[in-house]
C-alpha cells in the first residue's frame, strides 16, 4: 500500500518534471526561432547610426525608436497599389489553386485510373527542376499568349492579372500534400455516401473537403504567402509599375545606386508588407489547430 503511494508520488513528480521540460524546450526553441524576427523589428526602428554601431545594439531604448522609418518606407514606393495588386493576385491564384488541387488530389487519392502512379511520378519529378528553368520558357509562352501587350499595345491590367496568376493556379506541391490527407480518409465514408446516392463530385465537396479543411487552410496560407513573396515572375511579366506586387516594391525601393541598402527603412517596409499575412494567419490559425475528430472513423 505504502509502496503504491510512493510510486504514485514518483510518477506524479516525473510527470511534472516532464511537463516542465517540455515547456522549457518549447520556450528555448521559440527564442531561437524569434531571433531573426526580433532582429527585423529592431532594425526597422533603428536610426542609420544605431544600425552601424559595433557591436550591434541588442536592446534599443524606446526613446531612440525611429518610427518615421515606417513613414519613409511607405513613401518609397506605391505600396497601397502594390498591396491591392497582391491581394487580387493572391486571391485569384489561391482560388484557382484550391480548385485544381482539390480535383487533382481527389483523382489521385480516390479514383482508380490507368497510369495513375506513372502520372503522379511525372508530377513529382517536375518538382525537381529548378524554377528558373521554367521562368524562361514561361515568359515566352505568356508573351505568345499576348498577355504582355505588344510593341504597340501596352499591357492591360486584366492581361497582367492573367500573367501573374494563371501560372500559379495549380501546384504539384499542394496536390501531393492534399493527396496525402485525402488518403487518410477511410473508404467507408465513400461507400456510405455512394449508397446514399452521392455523386463523386458531391462526395468530394461535402465530405472530403470539409474533413481535409486544416490541410486546405494550410494550402491557402502557403499559397498566399507565395504570391506575397513572389518577385522574379511579377517583375518579368508586368510592364507597368502600377501592376506590380509588394515584393517588387520592397526590392526596388531600396536598391540604391551605389548598391548600399537602407536596411532600417527596408525592414520597416518588410514589416508593413508582412502584417497582412500575419493577420490572415491569426485568423485562420484556429482552423488549422482544430483538427479533425476521427472518432467513429478509423483509417
Amino acid at each position, binding site marked *: 500500500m505504502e509502496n503504491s503511494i510512493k510510486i504514485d508520488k514518483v510518477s506524479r513528480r516525473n510527470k511534472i518534471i516532464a511537463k516542465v521540460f517540455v515547456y522549457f524546450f518549447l520556450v528555448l526553441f521559440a527564442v531561437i526561432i524569434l531571433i531573426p524576427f526580433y532582429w527585423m523589428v529592431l532594425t526597422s526602428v533603428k536610426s542609420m547610426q544605431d544600425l*552601424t554601431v559595433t557591436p550591434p545594439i541588442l536592446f534599443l531604448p524606446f526613446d531612440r525608436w525611429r518610427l518615421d522609418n515606417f513613414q519613409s518606407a511607405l513613401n518609397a514606393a506605391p505600396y497601397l497599389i502594390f498591396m491591392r495588386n497582391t491581394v487580387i493576385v493572391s486571391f485569384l491564384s489561391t482560388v484557382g489553386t484550391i480548385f485544381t488541387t482539390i480535383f487533382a488530389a481527389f483523382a489521385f487519392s480516390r479514383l482508380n485510373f490507368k497510369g495513375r502512379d*506513372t502520372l503522379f*511520378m*511525372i508530377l513529382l519529378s517536375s518538382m525537381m527542376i529548378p524554377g528558373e528553368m521554367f521562368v*524562361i520558357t514561361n515568359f515566352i509562352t505568356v508573351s505568345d499568349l499576348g498577355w504582355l501587350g*505588344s510593341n504597340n499595345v*501596352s499591357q492591360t491590367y486584366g492581361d497582367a492579372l492573367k500573367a501573374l496568376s494563371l501560372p500559379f493556379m495549380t501546384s504539384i506541391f499542394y496536390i501531393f500534400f492534399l493527396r496525402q490527407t485525402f488518403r487518410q480518409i477511410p473508404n467507408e465514408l465513400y461507400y456510405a455516401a455512394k449508397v446514399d446516392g452521392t455523386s463523386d463530385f458531391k462526395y468530394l465537396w461535402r465530405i472530403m473537403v470539409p474533413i481535409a479543411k486544416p490541410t486546405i487552410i494550410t494550402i491557402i496560407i502557403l499559397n498566399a504567402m507565395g504570391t506575397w513573396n513572389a518577385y522574379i515572375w511579377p517583375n518579368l511579366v508586368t510592364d507597368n509599375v502600377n501592376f506590380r506586387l509588394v515584393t517588387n516594391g520592397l*526590392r*526596388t525601393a531600396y536598391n540604391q545606386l551605389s548598391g*548600399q541598402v537602407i536596411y532600417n527603412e527596408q525592414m520597416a517596409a518588410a514589416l508593413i508588407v508582412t502584417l497582412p499575412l500575419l493577420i490572415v494567419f491569426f485568423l485562420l490559425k484556429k482552423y488549422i489547430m482544430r483538427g479533425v475528430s476521427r472518432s467513429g472513423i478509423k483509417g
Partner: protein
Amino acid sequence: MKKLLVFMLSLSLVLTLSGCYSKTGETETEGVVVLAELPDEEINITFWHIYGQGKSELLDALIAEFEEMYPNITVESISQGSYTDLKSKAISSISAGNTPDLLVGYPDHFAEYLNGNAIIPLDLFINDETWGVDLTDFIDSYVEENSQYEGGVMYSMPYSKSTEMMVYNKTVFDHYGITLSNTEPVTWEELETYATQIVGDGEFQCDYLVNYDSSANLFINASRQWDGQYTNTAGEVLVDDANTVSMLNYMSGLFDSKTLALPIAWDESYGSANFLKGDVCMTIGSTAGIAYNIPLPGNVGKFGQFEVGIAPIPQKEGGVNSVMQQGPNIAIMSDTTDAERLASWLLIKHLTSAEATAQWAIDTGYLPVRYSGYESAEYQAFLDTANYDPDWKYQSMTANAAYAQVDFFQYDPAFANRVTSSDVRDEAGLALEAIFAKTKTVQEAIANMIAQLVW
C-alpha cells in the same frame, strides 16, 4: 519509368517538329533608316531604366520636358529595379519579341543583346544633319566605350556616368599636417608613407589607411596603371601577365602593411560604415555613393563627427594614369519602327543635352557626359569651390575630384561569349579578395582565376 521515357521522347519530338527554333544563318540585319521628318502620328515609346523613387522623379521631369517639345510622342518610363533584373528581363523580352524601345545598360549588357542583333547602330542618327549631335562634345573615353563593338559602331550613348573618388578623414590628416588636393591625385607610394604615420591604434590613427570598396575595380584599374594585361575585346583572359602579377604583388604588400584594405576586412560589402567608425581613414568608392561617407552630427565612432576631404583616386608613380569610368549607357532596340527609333533617338538626345546632363549630374551625383555640360554655367557654379552651397558641399567636392580625372578615364572591354566580361570582372574581384584574406598566394589566385574562366 519506361512510359515516362516514351512520353518525354515523344514530347521533345513534338517540340522539334513544331519548329519554334531555327538553325543559324537566317537572320538579316535591318538597315537603319533615319526619317527626315518626325511623323505626325501618335508615337509611344517605352524606356526601361532602373531608377528608384527619387531619381525616377527627376527623370520623369526631364521626360515631361521632352514630351512638351514633341507633343505627339508619349514616353512610358519603367523602372526595372536593378541592373540584374533589367538585363534578364530585356533578354527574355528580346527572345519573346516584345522589347521596349530604348533602355539603359552597361556595355556587357549591350554585348549580350548584340548576340541577338537586338540593338541598332546609332551612327546614322549621330551624323544626321537634322537630328545629329556633335560627338566631339562628348567625353572622349565615353565615346570610345560606346563604340568598342565590332566595326567601331556606336551602339549606345553615354548616359549616367560616374567614377571613383577617394574620401578621407580630414581631421586625421590635418593632425599630421598632410594636405591632400581636391584635384591632384596622390600616388600609391605616397599612401605608403602616410600609412607609416597613420596606421596604428593611437588616438589619431586607424587600423588601415585606405579601404577600396570594389576589389574588381581595384584589380582592373590598377593593372592598367601598371600597364598590365587584363582582357581584350575577343574575350581572352590575359591576367597571367608580368605587369599584372607585379601589380598584385604590390597590392599584396599594401595589404600586409595595412595601407590598403578591402571591405571584407570587416565582413562588409562597402567600407563606408567602417570609415565613419574610424576603422579606416580613407575610402575609395563610387562618386554616386558620397552621401554614405559623410559623418552626421552625433556620429558614433573614434573621431565623432570628423571633417571629410575628397580627392581623386591614387595613381602609380611613373605608371599609366587610369581611373575607372562606370555607369550605364543608353541604347535603342531593333524591334522598333522607324518612327519609334527616331522618337527614341530624340529622347536620348534630350537626356544627353548639355543642360539635361548637367542638371542630372547636379541632382544625382553622376557626371555630365558632355564637355559642354561641364562647362555650362550651372555646372560651373556647382563646381565653384569658392561659393559652396553648404548643402551641396561634398557633392561639389566629389564632382571636382571626378572632373580632375576626366583625362584618365578608362573602360574595360565588353564581351558576351560563354564567358562574359562581367564574369571576368567578378573573378578579378574574388582573386584580389583571396589575396587579401591570404587564402591564396598571388600565383594561386591568378591560376584559379584563369581556371574558373577558361574550361
